């Protein structure tokens, strides 16, 4: 504040008066659940809780946590390919059972693991698979009639349901494998493993920094929404003002991110960064890792052989 501004500070009359707030009779108004502000704040806190929980799980001493992240990463890729090539639901169900066994051996809460996988399945497969189960898309034997068309029964076909089951189980197995990998490997070790298997260093650096700054920007969003909440009188409205606020928040966040990116670049340059990032990579394969790799290859071979014997 300049000296002139400080000297000319005059408090307006209204600022010295009290504002009517709560009714003096002590009566209370209608209760209404929080709107988008509350949801955003809860979402931010929920994300942080989830990340802390994942970090705790990854730090436990279970079966998969003890494995070298490179071995885990390559093993998951191999099993994903094997599951992708399987054409029988029983084969995929067997693999899913194995993933549940691995989750239990890695001390993951089974309920949480199953929920996390099946939360994604409807999103990835629901829209694609649902129409394919109907007779007007996949012709065949109608097992559940929904309506008639020119005298012909129309509804779910056994062929359609089998195809849908195959897709759903394949997606569930794939997501289970990826969730197993991400829940049992600390984020930093996972990035280092990606680097070790040949992903360019600059990608790893960018992903790592994006992950680090998500939390900072999340903090900025939380601050803005809390400031909004503290000045919101009455119920939160979903009106034009609310949309303008969300837009303004996005704009402010973009500005902050831009400013931060400049500062981060300067901080990197100050410590010798010249476009070629170097990272700490310290891995050593143990006998246990080799054994795990062999087991993974054997499992992939068993999946493909078993599936071949089951036929189409």
């Amino acid at each position, binding site marked *: 504040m300049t000296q002139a501004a400080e000297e000319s500070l005059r408090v307006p009359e209204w600022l010295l008066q009290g504002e009517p707030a709560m009714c003096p009779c002590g009566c209370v108004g209608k209760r209404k659940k929080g709107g988008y502000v509350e949801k955003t704040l809860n979402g931010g806190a929920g994300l942080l809780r989830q990340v802390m929980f994942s970090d705790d799980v990854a730090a436990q001493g279970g079966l998969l946590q003890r494995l070298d992240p490179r071995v885990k990463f390559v093993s998951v890729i191999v099993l994903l390919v094997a599951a992708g090539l399987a054409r029988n639901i029983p084969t995929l169900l067997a693999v899913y059972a194995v993933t549940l066994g691995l989750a239990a051996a890695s001390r993951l809460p089974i309920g949480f693991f199953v929920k996390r996988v099946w939360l994604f399945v409807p999103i990835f497969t629901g829209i694609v698979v649902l129409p394919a189960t109907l007779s007007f898309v996949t012709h065949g034997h109608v097992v559940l009639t929904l309506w008639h068309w020119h005298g012909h029964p129309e509804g779910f076909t056994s062929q359609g349901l089998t195809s849908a089951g195959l897709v759903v189980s394949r997606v569930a197995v794939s997501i289970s494998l990826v969730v197993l990998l991400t829940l049992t490997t600390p*984020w930093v070790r996972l990035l280092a493993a990606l680097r070790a298997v040949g992903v360019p260093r600059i990608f790893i650096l960018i992903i790592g920094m994006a992950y680090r700054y998500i939390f900072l920007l999340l903090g900025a969003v939380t601050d803005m929404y809390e400031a909004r909440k503290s000045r919101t009188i009455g119920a939160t409205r979903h009106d034009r003002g609310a949309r303008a606020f969300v837009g303004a928040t996005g704009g402010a966040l973009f500005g902050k991110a831009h400013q931060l990116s400049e*500062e981060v670049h300067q901080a*990197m340059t*100050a*410590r010798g960064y010249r476009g070629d990032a*170097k*990272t*700490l990579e310290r891995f050593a394969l143990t006998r246990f890792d080799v054994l795990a790799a062999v087991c993974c290859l054997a499992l992939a071979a068993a999946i493909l052989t078993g599936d071949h014997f089951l036929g189409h």
Partner: protein
Amino acid sequence: MATETTTGTAPDPSTEREVQLACHEVSYSYLDRFPALDRVSLTVRAGERVALLGANGCGKSTLLKLLDGLIFPASGEFTAFGHTVTEDTLEDEQFSQAFRSRVGFVFQNSDAQVFSPTVREEVAFGPLQLGHTPEQAETRVTETLTMLGIADLADRAPFQLSGGQKKRVAIAGVLATNPEVLLFDEPTAALDPRSQYWLTDLIEQLGAAGKTIVHATHDLDVLPRIADRCVVFSEEHRVIAEGTPAEVLADRDLLLSVNLIHARSPLPG
């Protein structure tokens, strides 16, 4: 000449010591519109502890960035260790590496400086960039974290750290490269009293160990402990006085005119 007035006599800078950083009449404006430095001259010799004093927005942080070769003057000249530093000269890999390994900068915003996913990676960043092997970097990380009392934070993510812890990590990241010159931008700003005292002690010890220290600050109370010489900026982005902490702190009119104290403030110390 940028300096309009000089308070007292500057301390004997031991003119035999090597000039490490020198600015001659440098000017800088943001977006070519907002002036930040106006014909500023400054010489920093080996082992000196220099405090840049001034109100918010007077150009202290800009000067520190310039001294670290992060921005370049629109006019005037900046030399480091006898060599002119420009965008072109820093393109030279050998010169850049030598310069970066000899000058370290602790930013005011630790969130911008601590950018790696874990504390360990963060502290290892500088040594690795400057050509140390992962084993050497690992040793430096362990020893630096132990020295600063934060070895237990090695595997933590930055978002799990408090402001004071982040500042320690930022300092560890700079010290791990073992620079001769340390630049601190508002080092004690927004820190709790314990962290402030810890940092003041550290700067004192680093100075005693022979490091050259340049820091921008508002904190007049600790000046006698962490500075041999003060350079005072006016709100017009010029250097208007230089002197020992005792000389500068004794000049109430000067401190008032540059908005470092208020008419109702008691004199620090």
